[in-house]
């Protein structure tokens, strides 16, 4: 399914091509040579496979188009529209003082939706915080997402039956546990997989590299999605790392790796589906670098005009994942412009309904803060709890 190739991982410095030995990382780790002799041939670790199916002009490479019926294609479109509607409403609420600080996902809808789409209920998902679209697909009600972002603990645990870790706040801290879940799955002979996402900034964290190495050594059924949106708050990718082909890091660790147009919902879905199937079938981990762009703020506490020229954002408006997919759906008669308007309206209404549920249900529970740390409280902590409850009584807090 490889379409076009980027530059090789390393410039080939060997003058004589035949004098190099080609090695596929991970497939067979060679034992140390019996003779101990050093092999002086240069090593070709291969090239980074890249995938785009739907380009920014809304054209699909028919040879690569995934086998999905029209209904499923329309569902994918709707999921992205819903993700954006949710984002827009959250931003409005936050600006009106009705929502806590949160991390908008605008422009990265294809990443989120595409990586969650191929997952089944027994697969696991471990998200970073910029993962609305994926979490909604995984079964997190939108009112619950509002609840957690507005600072209520009740919103934080995954809903019953949803096999997700809560999203991570400390950058990259959720990637190792995701690999551990995969290691346990493998030991239980469960034919499932784990998808975990993180950003280009997180890829500078040692814990993320350790996670990829553990998964490789263990051949754990894990799919790593590196959402390369170009920015870690104010730090652009070129300040984050020298080798900006993040997928190449997987090759270095012996992990199947691919670079995908992260604004192409068909490529994201296809690459993730293939990686999940390989993982479930014992083929080990995959690293998918999803190239996208953070169109908006890091979080609502951020002001990108301080550090980023808005002109950098403009070209990405043309690459919008929803716009290009909608253009193709319409041109091929799978959707009318009227349909698109209707869907947008329905999604906005769905978000407003979720807001009503959130407002009706969200309730701070100060009396419960001691209830979840241990299976049962040790005596000292129980004494602290009683003192705290007496304090609440004095203040008249119920």
């Amino acid at each position, binding site marked *: 399914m490889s379409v076009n190739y980027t530059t090789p991982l390393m410039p080939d410095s060997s003058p004589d091509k035949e004098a190099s030995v080609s090695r596929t990382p991970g497939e067979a780790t060679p034992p140390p040579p019996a003779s101990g002799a050093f092999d002086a041939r240069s090593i070709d670790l291969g090239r980074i496979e890249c995938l785009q199916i739907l380009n920014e002009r809304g054209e699909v490479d028919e040879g690569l188009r995934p086998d999905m019926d029209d209904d499923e294609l329309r569902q994918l479109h709707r999921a992205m529209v819903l993700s954006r509607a949710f984002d827009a409403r959250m931003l409005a609420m936050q600006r009106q003082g009705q929502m806590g600080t949160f991390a908008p996902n605008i422009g990265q809808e294809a990443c989120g939706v595409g990586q969650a789409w191929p997952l089944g209920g027994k697969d696991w998902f471990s998200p970073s915080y910029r993962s609305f679209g994926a979490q909604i697909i995984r079964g997190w009600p939108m009112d619950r997402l509002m609840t957690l972002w507005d600072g209520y603990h009740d919103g934080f645990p995954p809903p019953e039956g949803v096999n997700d870790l*809560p999203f991570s706040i400390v950058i990259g801290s959720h990637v190792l546990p995701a690999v551990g879940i995969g290691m346990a799955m493998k030991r239980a002979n469960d034919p499932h997989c784990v998808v975990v996402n993180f950003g280009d900034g997180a890829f500078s964290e040692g814990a993320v590299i350790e996670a990829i190495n553990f998964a490789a050594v263990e051949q754990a059924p894990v799919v790593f999605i590196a959402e390369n949106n170009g920015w870690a708050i104010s730090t652009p990718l070129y300040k984050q790392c020298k080798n900006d082909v993040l997928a190449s890091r997987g090759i270095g660790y012996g992990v199947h790796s691919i670079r995908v147009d992260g604004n192409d919902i068909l490529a994201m879905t296809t690459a993730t589906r293939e990686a999940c199937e390989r993982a479930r079938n014992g083929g080990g981990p995959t690293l998918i670098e999803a190239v996208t762009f953070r169109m908006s703020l890091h979080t609502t506490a951020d002001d990108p005009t301080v550090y980023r020229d808005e002109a950098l954002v403009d070209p990405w408006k043309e690459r919008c994942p929803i716009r290009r997919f909608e253009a193709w759906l319409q041109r091929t008669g799978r959707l009318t412009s009227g349909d698109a308007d209707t869907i947008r309206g329905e999604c906005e209404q769905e978000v407003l309904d979720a807001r009503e549920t959130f407002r009706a249900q969200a309730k701070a529970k100060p009396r419960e803060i001691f209830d979840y740390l241990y299976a049962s409280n040790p005596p000292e902590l129980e004494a602290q709890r009683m003192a705290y409850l007496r304090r609440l009584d004095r203040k008249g807090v119920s």
Partner: protein
Amino acid sequence: MAKRTMVEALNLALDEALAADEQVCLMGQDIGVNGGVFRVTKGLQAKHGADRVIDSPLAECGIIGTAVGMAVYGMKPVAEIQFSGFTMQAFDQIEQNMARLHNRTQGRFPIRMVLRTPYGGGIRAVEHHSESREAYWAHTPGLKVVIPSGPRNARSLLAAAIADPDPIIFYEPKSVYRAFREEVPDAPESLEIGKAQVVHEGADVTIVSFGAMMRPAMEAVEDLAEVHGIEAELIDLLTVSPIDTETLVASVTKTGRCIIFHEGHQTCGIGAEVAARLAESGAFEYLVAPLRRLTAPDLPYPFFQVEQHFLPDAEDILAAAKELVEWT
């Protein structure tokens, strides 16, 4: 009954846990074929398989982070960090996930796991191999911190730690590993986590200690009785978080004097917490002398040619006990 070293007793507890519960697994550096650098896991990979006694890559953060994930999926991992000085590389995963995932998810994901690691000085080890930083973990909400002092309680406490529903830091006093043998029953035993033991009764002064320091403390107790006519009561904390306040208060209410003796640093150490709890408790009005902390100074652990001067010892206890008994 068989006489066992602490290493053998811990090996027995791990072997029993692996045999009794298929969700238990061990993971760490060099723990499989090599049996661990101290041989605590010797023979366990051959017996229980490489899938359950896992030789991990050399990455402490990776070991703890993946162990957390295994626990989320329902396993009960027992992770070994080769020396407690190297747990700092795993600090992030201990703090962010091991200690608080249960709380973050309102109990949805209990983290039933144990982090085993040898701690403490006295073995002429190279730098970073002799730390006693139990106070870090006692300061971290969500963890329990267990420190055995001899072969028999090591076996019982490790069994209890593996069976516990909460995440446990299990500090093994490496200077005790092969220091002596003790009768350890063949039948499985378990001790309650969070309970201290009064290992020697006395009316004049309470000595609170744990781990490797229990041996010099016991020496001092014997000397105090034989040479100085002072009857000391010796308490082995066994769990330094949560601390068994009740046992401490009962003892100091009786003796009116207290010495806290450990090899961790002084400031914000376990001794500071013990002293604070006594000062806040009903034992306060029974105190007839100030509290004394005998600890390592607030310095990085020194190079081993001077370590015998760095760690507090039995003589320090003798001097402090005499001072407190003579206090007017």
